[in-house]
């Protein structure tokens, strides 16, 4: 049962939608047209519906619409109402076109009207000619109108100079000129000048004031619409852009009779305004009015700018002061620099503050008190430098130099501030900053100094040992001592040498004496004593001769000693033979008497030989 009722309701809704759609009608009047014709398309409905959405009228020009109309009718006590939306369309090309139905919302449902068929046909030749003529006339009319507008509505730009230095301000004034009788519906800026290559400052004109001005016999209404200060930033030819305005002007258009006379419109413009014969129609024209562009020649500043020059051009003054002249270490003090005057003030950078000593200097803050006047930027800039002195002392804030190019004298001028004094007193110890302290020192930071010494120590106000007499004596003494020692040694050696010389000179004598006593022993037949004596004589002679002790001479080393004294082999051999014989004789005491005699003779000859050969 329930299902059935829902079905019925749904059906009823659908039915009512269908009924409404039939009531929503679209009608085209007429539905057969030629190209260029106008016709109406209207959509109407009998019920109160909303949210009308028109179809697209592709292929047609919409000339007007939608215009809405509502009708209410009382027929036989019954109210019937209808709403219609009407469009005026223009056929633009031939062919068959279908305009889709419009949509509406009724009782929450979307309903659509029927579509209409339009047949657009080729126009006749006469009609085409007429249309072309009309178009031509319209074009002509437009052209004329724009000429008229351009003649009577102008924007001029005026610069006060065209040959300037970089940074020298140029005042550009844009002025509007219009004929007092020109009926301007709307005038709006189309393109605002960009002014590339300039730093510009717009002068605030306030409300636009109109005035009257006579330009070559013609009176115009004028208004200054823009005034800009231009500070050229580049060298060369710079262009001051045009200012474009979009103007909507209403002009009176002549009647058809007048139009024929147009070919000779000598005073056409006057006709526009003073046509008393023909009431004519009014027509609105839209055009863009442009100001001419102007070139400005920008020269470079003369050479020879001082190092302190920072592109300031104009006329300036600089002064500086401190907000307080005495401050505790660690507290801030403000150093203010004021640059005042006129010129490219706003382009100036903060001058560099070059402080020596233990200061913390912060980036300057700038306050701008400049005004744009009709010819320049004037006023002052104040730079605030916050300085925090770190240590007590008497400090100087060095003068700050500021160079600018004076346009009046065409010369660079340098002004400087006064040198300022800053008295810094002892600050709070806690704020004392320690920089450049190494690790080792950090340990010491919180350490206190050692206590005083309780003994006086030695008085050092006396001569030092260094370079004193005793010092010099002790330092130099070793040298003479050493020399004395060496002298003593030399003397000693000399003595020894003398002794050996003596021995050498006496060697033969002693040997001969011994030989003599040996001979005595030989004669007395004491052979043992004889050999001993002869041995002593030879050995003693050799020892004396070579300054050697007898005990140090042996049969073995005598050979070497003799050779070292440059004795010949032969001699050495005889000496050794003799020594051997002596030795032999010593141990053979019962030797023959003759042998001992020859031994004696040999000993004598050897000794004399040695004496002679070893001189």
């Amino acid at each position, binding site marked *: 049962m329930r299902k059935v009722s829902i079905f019925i309701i749904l059906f009823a809704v659908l039915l009512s939608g269908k009924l409404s759609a039939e009531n929503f009608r679209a009608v085209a009047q007429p539905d057969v047209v030629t190209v260029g014709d106008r016709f109406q398309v209207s959509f109407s409905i009998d019920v109160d519906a909303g949210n009308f959405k028109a179809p697209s009228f592709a292929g047609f020009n919409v000339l007007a619409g939608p215009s809405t109309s509502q009708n209410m009718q009382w027929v036989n006590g019954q109210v019937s109402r209808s709403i219609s939306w009407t469009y005026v369309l223009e056929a633009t090309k031939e062919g068959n076109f279908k305009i889709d139905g419009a949509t509406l919302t009724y009782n929450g449902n979307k309903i659509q009207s029927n579509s209409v068929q339009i047949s657009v046909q080729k126009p006749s030749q006469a009609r085409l000619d007429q249309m072309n003529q009309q178009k031509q006339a319209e074009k002509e009319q437009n052209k004329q109108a724009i000429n008229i507008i351009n003649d009577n509505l102008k924007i001029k730009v005026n610069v006060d100079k065209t040959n300037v230095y970089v940074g020298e301000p140029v005042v550009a004034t844009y002025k509007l000129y219009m004929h007092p009788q020109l009926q301007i519906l709307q005038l709006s800026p189309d393109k605002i000048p960009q002014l590339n290559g300039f730093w510009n400052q717009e002068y605030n004109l306030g409300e636009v004031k109109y005035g009257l001005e006579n330009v070559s016999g013609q009176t115009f209404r004028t208004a200054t619409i823009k005034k800009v200060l231009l500070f050229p930033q580049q060298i060369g030819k710079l262009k001051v852009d045009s200012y474009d305005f979009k103007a909507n002007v209403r002009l009176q258009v002549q009647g058809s009779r007048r139009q024929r006379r147009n070919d000779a419109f000598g005073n056409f413009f006057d006709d526009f305004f003073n046509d008393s014969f023909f009431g004519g129609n009014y027509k609105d024209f839209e055009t863009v009015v442009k100001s001419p562009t102007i070139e400005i020649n920008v020269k470079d500043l003369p050479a020879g700018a001082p190092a302190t020059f920072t592109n300031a051009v104009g006329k300036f003054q600089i002064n500086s002061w401190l907000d307080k002249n005495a401050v505790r270490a660690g507290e801030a003090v403000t150093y203010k620099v004021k640059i005042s005057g006129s010129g490219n003030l706003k382009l100036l950078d903060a001058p560099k503050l070059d402080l020596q000593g233990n200061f913390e200097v912060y980036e300057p803050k700038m306050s701008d008190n400049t005004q744009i006047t009709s010819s320049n930027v004037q006023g002052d800039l104040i730079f605030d430098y916050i300085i925090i002195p770190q240590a007590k002392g008497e400090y100087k804030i060095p003068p700050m130099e500021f160079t600018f190019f004076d346009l009046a004298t065409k010369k660079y001028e340098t002004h400087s501030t006064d040198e300022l004094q800053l008295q*810094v007193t*002892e600050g709070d110890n806690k704020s004392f900053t320690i920089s450049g302290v190494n690790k080792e020192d950090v340990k010491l930071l919180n350490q206190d100094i050692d*206590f005083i010494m309780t003994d*006086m120590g030695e008085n050092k106000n006396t001569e030092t040992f260094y370079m004193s007499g005793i010092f010099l004596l002790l330092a130099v003494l070793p040298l003479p001592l050493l020399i004395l020692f060496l002298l003593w040694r030399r003397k000693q050696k000399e003595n020894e040498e003398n002794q050996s010389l003596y021995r050498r000179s006496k060697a033969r004598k002693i040997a001969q004496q011994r030989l003599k006593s040996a001979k005595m022993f030989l004669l007395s037949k004491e052979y043992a004593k004889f050999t001993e004596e002869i041995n002593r004589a030879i050995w003693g002679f050799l020892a004396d001769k070579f300054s050697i002790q007898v005990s140090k001479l042996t049969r073995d080393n005598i050979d070497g000693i003799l050779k070292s004294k440059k004795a010949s082999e032969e001699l050495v051999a005889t000496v050794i033979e003799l020594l051997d014989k002596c030795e032999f004789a010593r141990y053979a005491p019962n030797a023959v008497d003759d042998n001992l005699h020859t031994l004696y003779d040999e000993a004598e000859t050897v000794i004399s030989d040695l004496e002679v050969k070893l001189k």
Partner: protein
Amino acid sequence: MKKIFLLFILNILIQNFTFASDEINANEAFRKANNAYMKEDFKGAALLYQDIIKNGFVSANVYYNLGNCQFRLKNYGKAILNFEKAKRLAPSDESINLNLKIANLKIVDKIKPLPEFFLFSYLNGIAKSHETDTFSWWGILFIWIAVIFVGFLIVSNKAFLKKVSFGFVLLFFLIAASSFYLAYQSNHFLKETNEGIILTPSVYVKSSPDSEALDAFILHEGTKFMIIDNLGHWTKIKIANGNIGWIDKETFQEI
């Protein structure tokens, strides 16, 4: 004749006596100064120590104590000056070195010294570590030892002994020569090198001896520098980082 002799004796006695009494006065003043220091009357103590020095008694300890007084009075420049003076007289004293280091932390300028050839800085370090007389005695001692070895060298007649003695002679002569060099250096630091300490809170060091000259740099109280030259009331100085400039004689005191 007798009278003259008596007068001579008397004169010597008086001289000795006055000398002794000076010593006593100095001791007395030193004791008083120490008491004042302990009672935290640093100003009074400083005056007494200064009197002791003015009266001709100069010792590392008196300068050191005076430095301590100035440190307590927060006159760090003067404290450093006196510690430096004490250090010259007793270069290896630990208390003096410690207090000087602490005082140097209190001053503003932290100047990074120029790097020096390591051998020179090493030798200078040694030269500054002891008193001149210590080095002098070392020199004397070693030159005598060297001479004794020269004797050995002459007397000995064996090749080996000669070689050994020659080695010792060379060694000890070298040691003696270095000792004398160190003594010379140490004395140079003490007497001939002029150093100064800035005593005013801040000084602009000028690039030439003229008050109108450009400021080269700024120095603060307590900074040590070397004196290179003097001209009128201007002094040419060189700081540890090698910078050179002129300052007024009023602004510093020599060590």
